[in-house]
Protein backbone atom coordinates (compact mmCIF):
# COMPACT_ATOMS: atom_id res chain seq x y z
CA UNK A 1 0.00 0.00 0.00
CA UNK A 2 1.47 3.30 -1.03
CA UNK A 3 1.77 6.20 1.35
CA UNK A 4 -0.45 8.26 -0.98
CA UNK A 5 -3.35 6.16 0.25
CA UNK A 6 -3.37 8.32 3.34
CA UNK A 7 -3.60 11.46 1.29
CA UNK A 8 -6.88 10.09 0.02
CA UNK A 9 -9.36 12.40 1.69
CA UNK A 10 -11.66 9.67 2.86
CA UNK A 11 -8.83 7.70 4.37
CA UNK A 12 -7.38 10.84 5.87
CA UNK A 13 -10.58 11.85 7.60
CA UNK A 14 -10.98 8.34 9.03
CA UNK A 15 -7.40 7.88 10.16
CA UNK A 16 -6.99 11.37 11.54
CA UNK A 17 -10.26 11.15 13.42
CA UNK A 18 -9.07 7.98 15.05
CA UNK A 19 -5.55 9.21 15.69
CA UNK A 20 -6.34 12.65 17.05
CA UNK A 21 -7.42 11.82 20.64
CA UNK A 22 -4.43 9.53 21.13
CA UNK A 23 -1.89 12.04 19.94
CA UNK A 24 -3.52 14.78 21.99
CA UNK A 25 -3.49 12.66 25.14
CA UNK A 26 0.12 11.58 24.66
CA UNK A 27 1.34 15.11 24.10
CA UNK A 28 -0.59 16.36 27.12
CA UNK A 29 1.06 13.74 29.29
CA UNK A 30 4.50 14.53 27.91
CA UNK A 31 4.02 18.26 28.38
CA UNK A 32 2.78 17.92 31.95
CA UNK A 33 5.55 15.51 32.89
CA UNK A 34 8.27 17.50 31.16
CA UNK A 35 7.23 20.89 32.47
CA UNK A 36 6.61 19.75 36.04
CA UNK A 37 9.86 17.82 36.07
CA UNK A 38 11.72 20.76 34.58
CA UNK A 39 10.19 23.44 36.75
CA UNK A 40 10.06 21.77 40.13
CA UNK A 41 12.51 18.90 40.15
CA UNK A 42 15.66 20.35 38.65
CA UNK A 43 18.20 22.47 40.52
CA UNK A 44 18.77 26.14 39.69
CA UNK A 45 21.66 26.82 37.38
CA UNK A 46 24.73 28.14 39.22
CA UNK A 47 25.10 30.98 36.70
CA UNK A 48 21.58 31.79 35.62
CA UNK A 49 19.56 30.97 38.70
CA UNK A 50 15.99 29.91 38.20
CA UNK A 51 15.68 31.78 34.88
CA UNK A 52 17.22 28.77 33.19
CA UNK A 53 13.87 27.02 33.47
CA UNK A 54 12.46 29.07 30.65
CA UNK A 55 14.51 26.74 28.46
CA UNK A 56 11.72 24.17 28.68
CA UNK A 57 9.43 26.35 26.68
CA UNK A 58 11.89 28.38 24.68
CA UNK A 59 13.91 25.66 23.03
CA UNK A 60 11.02 23.36 22.03
CA UNK A 61 8.98 26.22 20.61
CA UNK A 62 11.99 27.56 18.68
CA UNK A 63 12.68 24.13 17.24
CA UNK A 64 9.06 23.66 16.28
CA UNK A 65 8.88 27.06 14.62
CA UNK A 66 11.67 26.14 12.26
CA UNK A 67 10.50 22.61 11.59
CA UNK A 68 6.93 23.63 10.92
CA UNK A 69 8.18 25.80 8.06
CA UNK A 70 10.04 22.80 6.66
CA UNK A 71 6.88 20.73 6.94
CA UNK A 72 4.95 23.46 5.10
CA UNK A 73 7.55 23.43 2.36
CA UNK A 74 7.15 19.68 1.91
CA UNK A 75 3.37 19.92 1.93
CA UNK A 76 3.47 22.75 -0.62
CA UNK A 77 5.69 20.70 -2.89
CA UNK A 78 3.32 17.76 -2.67
CA UNK A 79 0.44 20.04 -3.59
CA UNK A 80 2.26 21.66 -6.49
CA UNK A 81 3.44 18.33 -7.91
CA UNK A 82 0.72 15.83 -7.04
CA UNK A 83 -2.25 18.18 -6.44
CA UNK A 84 -3.34 16.51 -3.22
CA UNK A 85 -5.88 18.79 -1.62
CA UNK A 86 -5.15 17.43 1.83
CA UNK A 87 -1.55 18.53 1.71
CA UNK A 88 -2.45 22.04 0.54
CA UNK A 89 -4.87 22.38 3.41
CA UNK A 90 -2.34 20.88 5.82
CA UNK A 91 0.15 23.58 4.85
CA UNK A 92 -2.53 26.18 5.41
CA UNK A 93 -3.41 24.67 8.76
CA UNK A 94 0.20 24.52 9.92
CA UNK A 95 1.01 28.18 9.29
CA UNK A 96 -0.86 29.73 12.23
CA UNK A 97 0.63 27.11 14.55
CA UNK A 98 4.04 28.11 13.24
CA UNK A 99 3.28 31.77 13.85
CA UNK A 100 2.28 31.00 17.42
CA UNK A 101 5.39 28.93 18.06
CA UNK A 102 7.57 31.69 16.64
CA UNK A 103 5.88 34.23 18.86
CA UNK A 104 6.29 32.01 21.93
CA UNK A 105 9.98 31.54 21.18
CA UNK A 106 10.45 35.26 20.60
CA UNK A 107 8.68 36.23 23.80
CA UNK A 108 10.32 33.63 26.01
CA UNK A 109 13.67 34.54 24.46
CA UNK A 110 13.06 38.21 25.18
CA UNK A 111 11.99 37.47 28.75
CA UNK A 112 15.08 35.36 29.18
CA UNK A 113 17.31 37.93 27.57
CA UNK A 114 16.34 40.66 30.03
CA UNK A 115 18.03 39.05 33.06
CA UNK A 116 20.78 37.32 31.05
CA UNK A 117 21.97 40.00 28.62
CA UNK A 118 20.40 43.03 30.23
CA UNK A 119 18.37 43.68 27.11
CA UNK A 120 15.17 42.36 25.66
CA UNK A 121 16.54 42.20 22.18
CA UNK A 122 19.90 42.18 20.44
CA UNK A 123 20.66 41.85 16.76
CA UNK A 124 22.34 38.52 17.27
CA UNK A 125 22.36 36.46 14.05
CA UNK A 126 20.22 33.72 15.50
CA UNK A 127 17.59 36.06 16.86
CA UNK A 128 17.64 38.08 13.66
CA UNK A 129 17.10 35.18 11.34
CA UNK A 130 14.29 34.07 13.60
CA UNK A 131 12.64 37.44 13.20
CA UNK A 132 12.92 37.09 9.44
CA UNK A 133 11.28 33.69 9.66
CA UNK A 134 8.46 35.37 11.55
CA UNK A 135 8.04 37.82 8.67
CA UNK A 136 7.86 34.97 6.19
CA UNK A 137 5.16 33.34 8.28
CA UNK A 138 3.20 36.58 8.40
CA UNK A 139 3.40 37.04 4.64
CA UNK A 140 2.36 33.46 4.03
CA UNK A 141 -0.68 33.69 6.29
CA UNK A 142 -1.64 37.10 4.89
CA UNK A 143 -1.53 35.77 1.34
CA UNK A 144 -3.80 32.84 2.22
CA UNK A 145 -6.22 35.26 3.82
CA UNK A 146 -6.22 37.68 0.92
CA UNK A 147 -7.24 35.25 -1.80
CA UNK A 148 -10.76 33.94 -2.14
CA UNK A 149 -10.47 31.01 -4.46
CA UNK A 150 -8.95 28.17 -2.41
CA UNK A 151 -7.11 26.53 -5.32
CA UNK A 152 -5.60 29.83 -6.43
CA UNK A 153 -4.57 30.54 -2.86
CA UNK A 154 -2.99 27.10 -2.52
CA UNK A 155 -0.99 27.56 -5.73
CA UNK A 156 0.23 31.03 -4.92
CA UNK A 157 1.14 30.32 -1.31
CA UNK A 158 2.90 27.17 -2.51
CA UNK A 159 5.06 29.20 -4.88
CA UNK A 160 5.69 31.73 -2.12
CA UNK A 161 6.71 29.00 0.30
CA UNK A 162 9.17 27.62 -2.24
CA UNK A 163 10.77 30.92 -3.14
CA UNK A 164 10.58 32.07 0.48
CA UNK A 165 12.47 29.02 1.73
CA UNK A 166 15.37 29.76 -0.60
CA UNK A 167 15.48 33.37 0.54
CA UNK A 168 15.13 32.37 4.20
CA UNK A 169 18.22 30.20 3.87
CA UNK A 170 20.02 33.02 2.11
CA UNK A 171 19.06 35.42 4.88
CA UNK A 172 20.30 33.02 7.51
CA UNK A 173 23.68 33.05 5.82
CA UNK A 174 23.62 36.78 5.15
CA UNK A 175 22.80 37.59 8.76
CA UNK A 176 25.73 35.50 10.01
CA UNK A 177 27.97 37.36 7.64
CA UNK A 178 26.58 40.75 8.61
CA UNK A 179 27.05 40.43 12.32
CA UNK A 180 30.36 38.59 12.32
CA UNK A 181 32.77 41.49 12.44
CA UNK A 182 30.94 43.10 15.32
CA UNK A 183 30.30 40.15 17.51
CA UNK A 184 30.21 41.36 21.10
CA UNK A 185 29.76 37.97 22.62
CA UNK A 186 26.16 38.85 23.14
CA UNK A 187 25.07 35.43 21.97
CA UNK A 188 25.16 33.56 25.23
CA UNK A 189 23.16 30.86 23.53
CA UNK A 190 24.23 27.79 25.41
CA UNK A 191 25.70 25.05 23.37
CA UNK A 192 24.13 21.80 24.34
CA UNK A 193 27.27 19.73 24.70
CA UNK A 194 29.05 22.32 26.77
CA UNK A 195 26.48 23.87 29.03
CA UNK A 196 23.37 21.85 29.46
CA UNK A 197 23.89 19.22 32.07
CA UNK A 198 21.97 15.98 32.06
CA UNK A 199 19.66 17.19 34.82
CA UNK A 200 18.34 19.80 32.40
CA UNK A 201 18.70 17.65 29.34
CA UNK A 202 16.24 14.83 29.99
CA UNK A 203 13.22 16.88 31.01
CA UNK A 204 14.01 19.05 27.99
CA UNK A 205 13.78 16.01 25.75
CA UNK A 206 10.40 15.14 27.25
CA UNK A 207 9.21 18.70 26.67
CA UNK A 208 10.36 18.62 23.06
CA UNK A 209 8.45 15.38 22.56
CA UNK A 210 5.42 17.06 24.13
CA UNK A 211 5.66 20.02 21.75
CA UNK A 212 5.98 17.73 18.74
CA UNK A 213 2.89 15.85 19.89
CA UNK A 214 1.07 19.10 20.48
CA UNK A 215 1.91 20.24 16.96
CA UNK A 216 0.74 16.99 15.38
CA UNK A 217 -2.51 17.09 17.33
CA UNK A 218 -3.17 20.72 16.44
CA UNK A 219 -2.23 20.09 12.84
CA UNK A 220 -4.65 17.17 12.51
CA UNK A 221 -7.39 19.13 14.18
CA UNK A 222 -6.87 22.22 12.06
CA UNK A 223 -6.51 20.30 8.82
CA UNK A 224 -9.77 18.54 9.52
CA UNK A 225 -11.37 21.89 10.23
CA UNK A 226 -10.01 23.39 7.00
CA UNK A 227 -11.29 20.43 5.00
CA UNK A 228 -14.72 20.73 6.55
CA UNK A 229 -14.72 24.48 6.01
CA UNK A 230 -13.97 24.05 2.36
CA UNK A 231 -16.54 21.34 2.05
CA UNK A 232 -19.07 23.64 3.66
CA UNK A 233 -18.28 26.36 1.13
CA UNK A 234 -18.70 23.89 -1.71
CA UNK A 235 -22.05 22.73 -0.34
CA UNK A 236 -23.23 26.30 0.03
CA UNK A 237 -22.28 27.01 -3.56
CA UNK A 238 -24.15 23.88 -4.65
CA UNK A 239 -27.15 25.01 -2.70
CA UNK A 240 -27.17 28.27 -4.59
CA UNK A 241 -26.84 26.49 -7.94
CA UNK A 242 -29.92 24.43 -7.39
Amino acid at each position, binding site marked *: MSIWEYANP*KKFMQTSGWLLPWVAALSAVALVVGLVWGFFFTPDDYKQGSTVKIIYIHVPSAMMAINIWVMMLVASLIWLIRRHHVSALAAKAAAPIGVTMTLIALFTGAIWGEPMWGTWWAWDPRLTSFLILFLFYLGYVALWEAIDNP*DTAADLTGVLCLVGSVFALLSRYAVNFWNQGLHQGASLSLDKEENVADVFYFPLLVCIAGFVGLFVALLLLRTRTE*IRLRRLKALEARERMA
Partner: protein
Amino acid sequence: MDLSVSDLAVARGGVPVLEGLGFAVAGGEALILRGPNGIGKTTLLRTLAGLQPPLAGTMSLPAEAIAYAAHADGLKATLTVAENLAFWAAVYGTGASAVAAAMERMNLSQLAPRPAMSLSAGQKRRLGLARLLVTGRPVWVLDEPTVSLDTASVALFGEAVRGHLAAGGMAVIATHIDLGLPEARVLDLGAFKARPPGEGGISGEFDRSFDGAFA
Protein backbone atom coordinates in the same frame (compact mmCIF):
# COMPACT_ATOMS: atom_id res chain seq x y z
CA MET B 1 -8.13 23.86 -39.08
CA ASP B 2 -11.37 23.79 -37.16
CA LEU B 3 -12.32 24.81 -33.70
CA SER B 4 -14.14 21.91 -32.16
CA VAL B 5 -15.10 21.34 -28.60
CA SER B 6 -16.51 18.22 -27.07
CA ASP B 7 -18.07 17.43 -23.74
CA LEU B 8 -16.60 20.61 -22.29
CA ALA B 9 -17.42 21.67 -18.73
CA VAL B 10 -16.33 25.01 -17.33
CA ALA B 11 -16.35 26.39 -13.80
CA ARG B 12 -16.08 29.80 -12.22
CA GLY B 13 -14.94 30.32 -8.67
CA GLY B 14 -14.81 26.54 -8.32
CA VAL B 15 -18.50 26.17 -9.17
CA PRO B 16 -19.39 24.38 -12.43
CA VAL B 17 -21.53 26.62 -14.61
CA LEU B 18 -21.76 24.83 -17.96
CA GLU B 19 -21.36 21.15 -18.85
CA GLY B 20 -21.66 18.79 -21.80
CA LEU B 21 -20.85 21.49 -24.33
CA GLY B 22 -19.98 20.36 -27.81
CA PHE B 23 -19.76 22.39 -31.00
CA ALA B 24 -17.57 22.84 -34.04
CA VAL B 25 -16.73 25.94 -36.01
CA ALA B 26 -15.11 25.57 -39.39
CA GLY B 27 -13.07 28.18 -41.26
CA GLY B 28 -15.33 30.96 -42.53
CA GLU B 29 -17.99 30.31 -39.91
CA ALA B 30 -19.20 32.33 -36.96
CA LEU B 31 -20.91 31.03 -33.84
CA ILE B 32 -23.05 33.29 -31.72
CA LEU B 33 -23.49 32.38 -28.06
CA ARG B 34 -26.70 33.39 -26.41
CA GLY B 35 -28.13 32.85 -22.99
CA PRO B 36 -29.45 34.79 -20.03
CA ASN B 37 -27.23 36.77 -17.67
CA GLY B 38 -25.06 34.57 -15.53
CA ILE B 39 -25.37 31.43 -17.64
CA GLY B 40 -21.61 31.31 -18.17
CA LYS B 41 -20.76 32.95 -21.50
CA THR B 42 -17.81 34.88 -20.15
CA THR B 43 -16.51 31.79 -18.37
CA LEU B 44 -16.73 29.72 -21.54
CA LEU B 45 -14.94 32.32 -23.64
CA ARG B 46 -12.11 32.69 -21.12
CA THR B 47 -11.69 28.93 -21.17
CA LEU B 48 -11.53 28.88 -24.96
CA ALA B 49 -8.91 31.62 -24.86
CA GLY B 50 -6.78 29.48 -22.58
CA LEU B 51 -7.03 31.84 -19.62
CA GLN B 52 -8.49 29.16 -17.40
CA PRO B 53 -8.42 25.38 -17.60
CA PRO B 54 -11.61 23.48 -18.44
CA LEU B 55 -13.17 21.34 -15.76
CA ALA B 56 -13.56 18.49 -18.23
CA GLY B 57 -13.64 17.87 -21.96
CA THR B 58 -11.38 18.73 -24.87
CA MET B 59 -10.78 21.64 -27.21
CA SER B 60 -9.17 21.08 -30.58
CA LEU B 61 -7.37 24.39 -31.03
CA PRO B 62 -4.34 25.65 -29.15
CA ALA B 63 -4.83 28.97 -27.39
CA GLU B 64 -2.22 30.40 -29.78
CA ALA B 65 -4.76 30.53 -32.57
CA ILE B 66 -7.14 32.70 -30.62
CA ALA B 67 -7.57 36.44 -30.31
CA TYR B 68 -9.63 37.30 -27.24
CA ALA B 69 -11.49 40.54 -26.57
CA ALA B 70 -13.58 41.24 -23.50
CA HIS B 71 -15.12 44.13 -21.61
CA ALA B 72 -11.72 45.43 -20.60
CA ASP B 73 -10.07 46.59 -23.78
CA GLY B 74 -6.47 46.63 -22.58
CA LEU B 75 -6.12 50.26 -23.68
CA LYS B 76 -3.58 52.56 -22.12
CA ALA B 77 -5.26 55.86 -21.29
CA THR B 78 -2.17 57.97 -21.89
CA LEU B 79 -1.16 56.43 -25.21
CA THR B 80 -2.74 57.68 -28.41
CA VAL B 81 -5.03 55.56 -30.52
CA ALA B 82 -2.23 54.91 -33.00
CA GLU B 83 0.30 54.06 -30.30
CA ASN B 84 -2.06 51.63 -28.63
CA LEU B 85 -2.54 49.74 -31.86
CA ALA B 86 1.13 49.93 -32.81
CA PHE B 87 2.04 48.24 -29.54
CA TRP B 88 -0.22 45.28 -30.16
CA ALA B 89 0.95 45.07 -33.74
CA ALA B 90 4.52 44.80 -32.45
CA VAL B 91 3.54 42.10 -29.96
CA TYR B 92 1.82 40.05 -32.64
CA GLY B 93 4.48 40.87 -35.20
CA THR B 94 2.06 42.24 -37.78
CA GLY B 95 3.64 45.62 -38.48
CA ALA B 96 2.60 49.15 -39.32
CA SER B 97 0.49 48.41 -42.38
CA ALA B 98 -1.86 46.33 -40.25
CA VAL B 99 -2.30 49.27 -37.91
CA ALA B 100 -3.25 51.66 -40.68
CA ALA B 101 -5.64 49.12 -42.17
CA ALA B 102 -7.30 48.46 -38.81
CA MET B 103 -7.80 52.16 -38.12
CA GLU B 104 -9.26 52.62 -41.57
CA ARG B 105 -11.60 49.67 -41.08
CA MET B 106 -12.88 50.84 -37.69
CA ASN B 107 -13.21 54.47 -38.73
CA LEU B 108 -10.57 55.61 -36.26
CA SER B 109 -8.16 57.40 -38.59
CA GLN B 110 -9.46 60.78 -37.53
CA LEU B 111 -8.92 59.94 -33.88
CA ALA B 112 -5.39 58.52 -34.38
CA PRO B 113 -3.46 61.24 -32.49
CA ARG B 114 -5.93 61.43 -29.57
CA PRO B 115 -4.96 59.82 -26.24
CA ALA B 116 -7.28 56.94 -25.44
CA MET B 117 -8.52 58.57 -22.25
CA SER B 118 -10.26 61.35 -24.20
CA LEU B 119 -12.39 58.92 -26.19
CA SER B 120 -16.06 58.34 -25.52
CA ALA B 121 -17.28 54.90 -24.45
CA GLY B 122 -18.15 53.87 -27.99
CA GLN B 123 -14.94 55.21 -29.49
CA LYS B 124 -12.95 53.21 -26.94
CA ARG B 125 -14.84 50.09 -27.90
CA ARG B 126 -14.06 50.65 -31.57
CA LEU B 127 -10.41 50.91 -30.67
CA GLY B 128 -10.65 47.67 -28.71
CA LEU B 129 -12.11 45.96 -31.78
CA ALA B 130 -9.43 47.42 -34.03
CA ARG B 131 -6.93 45.58 -31.85
CA LEU B 132 -8.46 42.30 -33.04
CA LEU B 133 -7.67 43.21 -36.60
CA VAL B 134 -3.98 43.74 -35.87
CA THR B 135 -3.56 40.38 -34.14
CA GLY B 136 -3.82 38.50 -37.41
CA ARG B 137 -5.12 35.46 -35.58
CA PRO B 138 -7.63 33.12 -37.19
CA VAL B 139 -10.11 32.65 -34.33
CA TRP B 140 -11.84 35.62 -32.73
CA VAL B 141 -13.35 35.03 -29.31
CA LEU B 142 -15.44 38.04 -28.38
CA ASP B 143 -17.37 38.86 -25.22
CA GLU B 144 -20.21 41.32 -25.88
CA PRO B 145 -18.25 43.23 -28.48
CA THR B 146 -20.95 45.76 -29.36
CA VAL B 147 -21.58 47.17 -25.92
CA SER B 148 -21.82 50.98 -26.14
CA LEU B 149 -21.71 51.00 -29.94
CA ASP B 150 -24.24 53.02 -31.96
CA THR B 151 -25.99 51.52 -34.97
CA ALA B 152 -23.42 52.75 -37.47
CA SER B 153 -20.59 51.24 -35.47
CA VAL B 154 -22.43 47.94 -35.01
CA ALA B 155 -22.70 47.77 -38.79
CA LEU B 156 -18.99 48.54 -39.07
CA PHE B 157 -18.28 45.72 -36.67
CA GLY B 158 -20.50 43.36 -38.68
CA GLU B 159 -18.50 44.26 -41.77
CA ALA B 160 -15.24 43.54 -40.00
CA VAL B 161 -16.44 40.13 -38.85
CA ARG B 162 -17.68 39.32 -42.34
CA GLY B 163 -14.33 40.31 -43.81
CA HIS B 164 -12.58 38.11 -41.29
CA LEU B 165 -14.78 35.15 -42.12
CA ALA B 166 -14.35 35.69 -45.84
CA ALA B 167 -10.60 35.42 -45.32
CA GLY B 168 -11.15 31.99 -43.77
CA GLY B 169 -11.25 33.11 -40.16
CA MET B 170 -13.60 31.95 -37.42
CA ALA B 171 -15.46 33.81 -34.70
CA VAL B 172 -17.20 32.89 -31.45
CA ILE B 173 -19.24 35.80 -30.15
CA ALA B 174 -21.28 36.17 -26.97
CA THR B 175 -23.94 38.82 -27.20
CA HIS B 176 -27.38 39.85 -26.02
CA ILE B 177 -28.28 42.00 -29.00
CA ASP B 178 -28.63 41.46 -32.70
CA LEU B 179 -25.33 41.79 -34.52
CA GLY B 180 -26.69 41.80 -38.04
CA LEU B 181 -24.95 38.56 -38.93
CA PRO B 182 -27.84 36.42 -40.18
CA GLU B 183 -25.49 33.83 -41.67
CA ALA B 184 -24.00 32.98 -38.27
CA ARG B 185 -25.09 29.95 -36.32
CA VAL B 186 -26.62 30.60 -32.91
CA LEU B 187 -25.99 28.40 -29.89
CA ASP B 188 -28.22 28.85 -26.88
CA LEU B 189 -26.28 27.98 -23.75
CA GLY B 190 -29.44 27.53 -21.68
CA ALA B 191 -29.46 23.83 -22.51
CA PHE B 192 -25.99 23.25 -21.11
CA LYS B 193 -26.47 24.71 -17.67
CA ALA B 194 -24.60 22.59 -15.17
CA ARG B 195 -26.89 20.46 -13.06
CA PRO B 196 -26.36 20.17 -9.31
CA PRO B 197 -24.03 17.24 -8.55
CA GLY B 198 -26.84 15.44 -6.79
CA GLU B 199 -28.69 15.18 -10.11
CA GLY B 200 -25.78 13.79 -12.05
CA GLY B 201 -24.02 17.06 -12.81
CA ILE B 202 -20.26 17.32 -12.97
CA SER B 203 -18.40 18.53 -9.93
CA GLY B 204 -15.01 20.08 -9.22
CA GLU B 205 -11.91 18.11 -8.42
CA PHE B 206 -12.08 18.87 -4.73
CA ASP B 207 -15.70 17.83 -4.49
CA ARG B 208 -15.11 14.68 -6.43
CA SER B 209 -12.29 13.52 -4.21
CA PHE B 210 -14.11 14.47 -1.02
CA ASP B 211 -17.53 13.11 -1.81
CA GLY B 212 -18.04 10.22 0.55
CA ALA B 213 -15.36 11.42 2.95
CA PHE B 214 -18.05 12.63 5.31
CA ALA B 215 -20.19 9.63 5.92
